[in-house]
Structure formats: structure tokens, C-alpha cells
């Protein structure tokens, strides 16, 4: 793929819906995709029905349809976030070992996950803040990180204290090494290639401002 870096200085920062929509537009047609729990789930709202994208949920289903409402709710039919969903024509069910074999075996094209931090090398931290008091809980995050051909992450670029979540080295406990290929944030999207970080586009901020606040070398496409 070839990109061209764009500074959208006049654009507003992306809200959650806009970020989800951008991710949805970027998912190649006919991909097999897993959307992580939380914010990434929203991406499905923006996948057009003619995209051919087929959704996997790691609790054992390929061909997941939209969230179930009303009479369509069936508590035996849920996604990884334990939300009732629907099945589409061509759905299949399988047990947990088969489902994670599908992930770990590299068969999914894309997974989308939230992130606490992503390093310039694509290391991902999204399962634990490492607090002394924290109860560890990882779910399927580590399996998705190593399994999907492409891992897209979604996060705000800056933490509440203003620090960048795109970092030279993750300080939070790692989920996976060198696995992230794209970072979608409210103010910029980044492409990670061969250990380098490229800015694809900005929203509301300039490249100069980004470079002043993100402690990672940011390259641009011509």
C-alpha cells in the first residue's frame, strides 16, 4: 500500500464513532476480522454489508451478525464481550480450542484492539496497568496480538496527564511483541513498518505539534 501523509489542521479530533468509522473504511474487503471488546466493537456499525468482511468472535463463531435486540436476544448466542449478537447466513460455530487455533494459526486478516500503550516497534500493552493492587486478567488479548496478520489499535493518543501513549518502549506490562501494524487515535493515524513509525494523517494537530509531544521518531510519506 502506498500512502501520502496529510495534515488535517482544520479537522476536529476524531470522536469514538469517527475513529471506528475510519478503521472500518480501512479494513480490506472480504477480510476475516476480530473486533476486540469495548471500543473496537463499534467498528462493526460502520462496516457496509457489501464489504464482504466476516467477523470472528473468539468464544467460537465465524460470521457474527449485529447485536441482537428484542426477541432476537438468545443468551446462547453472545460475542466475546458477552453481548447478545445474531448469526448471518454462512455462520459456523466451534469450540474454544478450535477458535483460538484459528486465531493463533494466523488465519485472521485483521484484529482491532484497544491499547494502553504502543511502542515504536509495535509492542502492545493493553491488558494490565501493572498496579500493585490490580487483579491480572488477560482474556484473549495475547492470542489476538500474536495471531492476526494485522493488528490495528484504537486509543486516544494522549493520556489524561498529557503523556503520549505512543512510546519508545512500553512501560505497562506487554500483551505482545512487535505485533501492531496500525495505530488509530483521535488526533492522528500511524502506520508501523519495519520498526519505523509513519504518520498517515493528522486531525486538528500539526506534524510539528505531534513531533513535539510524541517521544518517538515520526516519519512521513511523501
Amino acid at each position: 500500500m502506498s500512502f501520502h501523509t496529510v495534515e488535517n489542521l482544520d479537522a476536529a479530533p476524531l470522536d469514538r464513532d469517527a475513529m471506528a468509522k475510519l478503521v472500518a473504511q480501512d479494513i480490506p474487503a472480504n477480510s476475516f476480522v476480530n473486533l476486540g471488546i469495548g471500543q473496537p466493537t463499534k467498528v462493526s456499525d460502520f462496516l457496509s454489508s457489501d464489504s464482504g468482511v466476516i467477523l470472528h468472535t473468539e468464544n467460537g463463531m465465524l460470521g457474527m451478525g449485529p447485536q441482537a435486540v428484542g426477541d432476537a436476544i438468545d443468551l446462547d448466542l453472545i460475542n466475546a464481550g458477552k453481548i447478545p449478537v445474531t448469526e448471518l447466513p454462512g455462520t459456523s460455530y466451534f469450540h474454544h480450542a478450535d477458535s483460538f487455533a484459528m486465531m493463533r494459526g494466523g488465519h485472521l486478516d485483521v484484529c482491532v484492539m484497544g491499547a494502553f500503550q504502543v511502542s515504536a516497534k509495535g509492542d502492545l500493552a493493553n491488558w494490565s496497568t501493572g498496579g500493585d493492587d490490580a487483579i491480572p486478567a488477560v482474556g484473549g488479548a495475547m492470542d489476538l496480538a500474536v495471531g492476526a496478520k494485522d493488528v490495528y489499535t484504537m486509543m486516544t493518543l494522549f493520556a489524561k496527564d498529557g503523556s503520549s501513549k505512543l512510546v519508545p518502549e512500553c512501560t505497562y506490562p506487554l500483551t505482545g511483541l512487535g505485533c501492531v501494524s496500525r495505530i488509530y487515535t483521535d488526533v492522528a493515524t500511524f502506520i508501523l513498518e519495519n520498526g519505523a513509525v509513519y504518520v498517515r494523517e493528522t486531525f486538528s494537530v500539526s506534524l510539528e505539534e505531534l513531533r513535539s509531544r510524541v517521544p518517538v521518531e515520526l516519519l512521513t510519506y511523501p
Partner: protein
Amino acid sequence: MLNIAQSADEAVSVITEGSTVLIGGFGTAGQPIELIDALRRHGAGNLTVVNNNAGNGDVGLAALLGAGLVTRIICSFPRQVDSYIFDELYRSGKIELEVVPQGTLAERIRAGGAGIAGFYTRTSAGTPLAVGKESRVFEGKEYVLELPIRGDFALVKAHRSDGMGNLVYRKTARNFGPIMAAAANASIVQVSEIVETGALDPEIIVTPCIYVDTVVQIDADATHGKARA
């Protein structure tokens, strides 16, 4: 030969103090809640439980933990918004926790049933969950050695059984059931319906009867899913 129990209480009565119990379910889908409740009433303690989570609210697995019967839990995602019973036990040091990535948990259980003594997975390599585990490089990438999980007992919820114990499941309620049934010395299964042997198409059986020891029919209306087709 299949044992058909008359009640959940009878079905779990064989479970002994100190057992490792694999418990199926992901959320409420496939959760054998009547069997878990019966196990709590049964009262065998010092249990090790393997489940994806560590209980929600104050029912089912959470109530089993709350009754002080579980001293160790192996799971992928203990912390949830309503896992307060587990949280309290954990913080007060009353329960031992082993956190395993969800796919590694599933594969370790599968290995337990399949006679695999260990396997190498990329999952968790380079992360805190690989600390203390052996790792090894294959074709330039680091993999972690993981060991099988077996249970003395499995508690599983399936959709239908025939008279021999062949099982089919329903939608995403299948989750851990098939691999847990295979990895336990004795599998205890609650089903919504027991049908005549021969009534299930041989092509659609998910758990062959060799993996099933006891079946108990629990009225579908009493279960937590929608009425089953």
C-alpha cells in the same frame, strides 16, 4: 457406560475434596449453573477450579467461591465489573490465582485430553505471563512451553445427549464444553434434553460418548438461555 442421574445433586455427589474441576461456560452461555449450585450444596472443599472467568455477582461460580470451597482458580479473565466475591477472596489471600491467556487455556485443556505433554505457543512470549516459563526460538520467533491441564471432573452444559452420552451443543454455548469433557477423568453433563440413541445424526455429534460419564436432564425452562429450539 453412561450414568443417567436423576438430579444435579446426584450427578455431582461423586466429587471429592481436593478435586480439580473443569467448569464450562463463557458468561452464562454454556454455564452449567445447576451443576455448580449442586456442587456448592454438596460441599466438597479445597477445590481447584478451571473456568474462563472467576464468577459474576453472587450466583453460580461466584457463590461456589463465596462458600469457601475453592482454594485455587485457573482462568483467563477473573476481573469483571461484578466479580466482587472473587476480588475480595483474592485480595485477602484466600484464593490462589493462575491467569492464563484464553487461547492457551483452551489449548492446554485440549492437550490434557489429547495426550500432549507440552506444546510451544507464541502467545504470551515476551510478556509477564511468560515469566518463569521455558521458552524457545523456532524459525526466529520466541515460543513459550505450555503444559496440559486435566481435571478430575468436568461440569459441562450441552444441549442434547442421546442415551449413550453423545452430545450436541447450541450456538456459542459450545465454548469450553467439548475440550473439558475430553480432559476430565469423569465428565458430568447437564443437558436440556435426553433423546433416544440413534436420534442424533452421527455427522453432527460434537462430543462422542467416550468423553461423557454422567448426564442429567435439567428442564430447559429452568436454564438461563432463551427457550431452545
